[in-house]
């Protein structure tokens, strides 16, 4: 009999662990609420001009921000609470990188945070999944932020997000002790070779390698079915052939002073000290400054030689923004918070603590922002030749593959026109 009891117990525990193991995948990061909702009822009567009046209930909100932004976000949230003293809040902050926000939100939009930060390349997917709540106070957002940022936050003429940074683009870092003329690739590569250094750029990424094509007047366009239309295999409005652009990329890639870098590996390559120049963004500013020392300099992207003429490189201008989850139970307060987190003071605080270039026009005009070498370069690049990249999900893998072929110097010797035709065909696939 004892044996049976034992085995029954075993079975029950087995089943119990099974239940426990499967049922517990919801993250519980809600802190305990301060239970003073009742006292708040009294104050609801007093009307305030701009701020929404407090209702009796406690407003629970979840915010996702990048790991480096946790302290700052918490401080800003405290200020938000102070600005709305009539309302009880229970706001918790979770960690989610801006680069991956989409991946985790789309898994289960209803379980995602109410307010989250993301990079602008994800906005189309988020809008398609109806995750983003359209901005109500469009007047404030579009008048206070730079034009490019507002454009990047707009899909089909609707403003969907609150921009907070305008520095998520790439430009040229160079060591002024090595490179004397940073205005064109030929000079940069020659200078680097003379100094025994290399000039690096990520080729195998549709975000970086599109810069050659955008600069020559080519475009990408996202269609309603999720496919991307591109004209890279034809002739651009500037009268430049796509094959000439590809040949120009090959010429750079096969130059011995050029170093193709894998996406995400830029920091490692900077640290090796072999580089005299690199195309990257503000996220590498500290590393580059350390590597280049007193030669540290940044400027707009150089021109490249295309069929005998100098063509400026364009760039996929990048912005970071805060979105509000349309599935949120407190969508109104979530929008208030998003607006607060992206207002002028918050953006100024963000620059002060994290050196993030503001998208807010007034905050961007502050002298300390203007003096930041990297941010000045990205702002100049965006203004000169920045394009808000409009592409679908099927754009990335084919362009990455194309860039890799270019970076390897087209080892199979495939006809460039064929390569471009294949690329255009692949990105034109509807999502299936």
């Amino acid at each position, binding site marked *: 009999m004892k044996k049976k009891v034992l085995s*029954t117990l075993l079975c029950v525990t*087995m089943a119990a662990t099974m239940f426990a193991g499967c049922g517990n995948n919801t993250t519980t990061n809600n802190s305990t609420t301060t239970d003073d909702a009742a006292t708040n009822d009294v104050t609801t009567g007093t009307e305030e001009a701009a701020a929404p009046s407090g209702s009796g209930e406690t407003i629970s909100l979840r915010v996702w921000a990048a790991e480096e932004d946790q302290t700052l976000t918490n401080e800003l949230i405290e200020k938000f609470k102070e600005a709305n003293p009539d309302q009880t809040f229970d706001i918790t902050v979770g960690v989610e990188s801006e680069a991956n926000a989409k991946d985790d939100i789309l898994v289960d*939009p209803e379980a995602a945070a109410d307010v989250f930060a993301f990079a602008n390349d994800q906005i189309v997917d988020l809008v*398609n999944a109806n995750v983003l709540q359209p901005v109500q106070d469009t007047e404030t957002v579009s008048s206070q932020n730079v034009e490019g940022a507002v454009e990047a936050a707009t899909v089909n003429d609707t403003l969907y997000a609150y921009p907070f940074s305008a520095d998520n683009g790439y430009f040229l870092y160079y060591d002024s002790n090595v490179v004397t003329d940073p205005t064109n690739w030929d000079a940069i590569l020659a200078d680097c070779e003379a100094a025994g250094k290399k000039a690096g750029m990520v080729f195998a990424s549709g975000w970086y390698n599109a810069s050659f094509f955008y600069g020559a007047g080519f475009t990408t366009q996202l269609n309603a079915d*999720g496919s991307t239309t591109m004209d890279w295999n034809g002739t651009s409005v500037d009268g430049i052939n796509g094959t000439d652009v590809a040949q120009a990329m090959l010429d750079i890639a096969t130059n011995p002073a050029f170093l193709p870098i*894998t996406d995400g590996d830029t920091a490692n390559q900077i640290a090796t000290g072999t580089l005299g120049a690199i195309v990257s963004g503000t996220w590498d500013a500290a590393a580059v400054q350390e590597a280049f020392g007193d030669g540290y300099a940044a400027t707009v992207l150089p021109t490249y030689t295309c069929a005998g003429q100098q063509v400026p490189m364009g760039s996929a201008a990048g912005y970071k923004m805060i979105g509000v989850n349309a599935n949120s139970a407190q969508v109104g307060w979530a929008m208030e918070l998003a607006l607060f987190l992206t207002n002028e003071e918050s953006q100024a605080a963000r620059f002060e603590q994290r050196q993030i270039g503001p998208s807010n026009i007034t905050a961007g005009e502050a002298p300390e922002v203007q003096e930041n070498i990297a941010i000045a370069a990205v702002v100049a690049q965006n203004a000169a030749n920045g394009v808000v990249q409009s592409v679908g999900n099927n754009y990335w893998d084919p362009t990455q*593959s194309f860039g890799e072929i270019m970076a390897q110097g087209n*080892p199979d010797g495939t006809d460039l026109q064929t390569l471009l035709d294949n690329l255009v065909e692949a990105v034109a696939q509807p999502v299936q």
Partner: protein
Amino acid sequence: MGACMSENVKTKKENPAAEFFRSIGAFFKEFGEAVAKGDWGVKASLVVMGAGYWKRKQIVKGVLVTLLEIAVILYTVLIGIPYISQLGTLGEVERAMVYNPETMKNEVNDYDNSLLILLFGVISLSFLVVAVLLWFANVRNTYRLQKLAESGKHINTFREDCSAMLNDKFHFTLLALPVLGVVIFNVMPLIVMICIAFTNYDQNHMPPAQLFTWVGLENFKSLFTTSLTMTFGYTFWKILGWTLLWAVFATFTTYFGGIILALMINSKLTKLKKMWRTLFVASISIPQFVTLLLLRNFFANNGLANTFCASVGITDFFKNLGWITTDYIPFLTDPVWAKCTIVVINIWVGVPYLMLIATGVLMNIPEELKESAKIDGANPFQIFRKITMPYMFFITGPYLVTQFTANINNFNVIYLLTQDVYTTTDQKLAASSGKEIDLLVTWLYRLTSEQYNYKMASVIGICVFIVCAVITLFAFNFLIKGDKEETFQ
């Protein structure tokens, strides 16, 4: 599958498939008999399930069964029917949201969520099937009671029934919870996942904001066709080919590597046996993913291995041979090099396990066998080929087969070594998010996690299952035939 299995065991047992269908037939025959010949109690339990038990004074049992019946009917009417009725379309009302500035909240219409409809529809439908089967069984049970009563035999009280569950029928009690768990947590989700292969659930049809619906065999068609714009077919066959090749290489290199290593350590000429064994086992104690991520950095284009090869002159040597055209050795970035590197790294990661298993088996080979072979004049290689290997094969056969299927699904090694490092230069593969070094399972993973293409992932999942099932069945039937047992007795 059933038919294939049954042919081999036909000699020993009766065909299990036929037996299965016969028992189903018997079940319904008995039910028919119960309806035809049952007394009023049995007939009343067609409507009120407890009636038959009440007639035989089994009050508690009757009440419990009737309560269950009421619960099932209530569930079906209130929850089941609404979901089941929508299973055909998977919902028709798309979500619409309007922001109300006064309440500061979104006003949402009464929308359909396709995923929930599919999930609850399938669950409710299976509840219903089980309930109907229970109803059949219940009528049959009351008829059995009637026959017991007619032949004047003892009818169990509730207490006796309960104690029977702890004694004669203890296996039922014991298995009830685990079986329930398996059904709820494995079988049900599996059915839903399989259903998704026949829908258009992808990033353009994501619940709750959008609906998805049935598309029949469309997804299977697109997996097997290659057209100008669709390269799924091309990618599938290419990846399937490498998956199988990889499984063969990965399984047999580690298998023979492990045996040879174990033989070498076991050899009488080897000194410090325990030290060698410990050294190799030590590599197991490091988590696999740490090893793999470290090796990925070692073998990167600008990694340690390349720096070393360049300084020693191996890179130039390969260049002169014409094996590489780059200034570095593309260990993990060229299709052929990467495949070789991955197999070699897998040997390093997998051999210690096999060495341990082989050591155990080798120690169990009867020494007399080898001695008598030696007396008969067999050389060490002949002993290895004729005695050691057959013995090894016999003992480790099942392990070999499971290892093979595990390698088909060996996500870790491939994904951790190549993610963010390997970029395909095959434009057709890139168009379907595939890479030369992808296994079906890593391709599936990237389709779901990066492209949200759940329907294609589900289709590929089904294909992986079919491949694994076919190979396992063949392997078990041909590799490990049951009749070898006598050879080693």
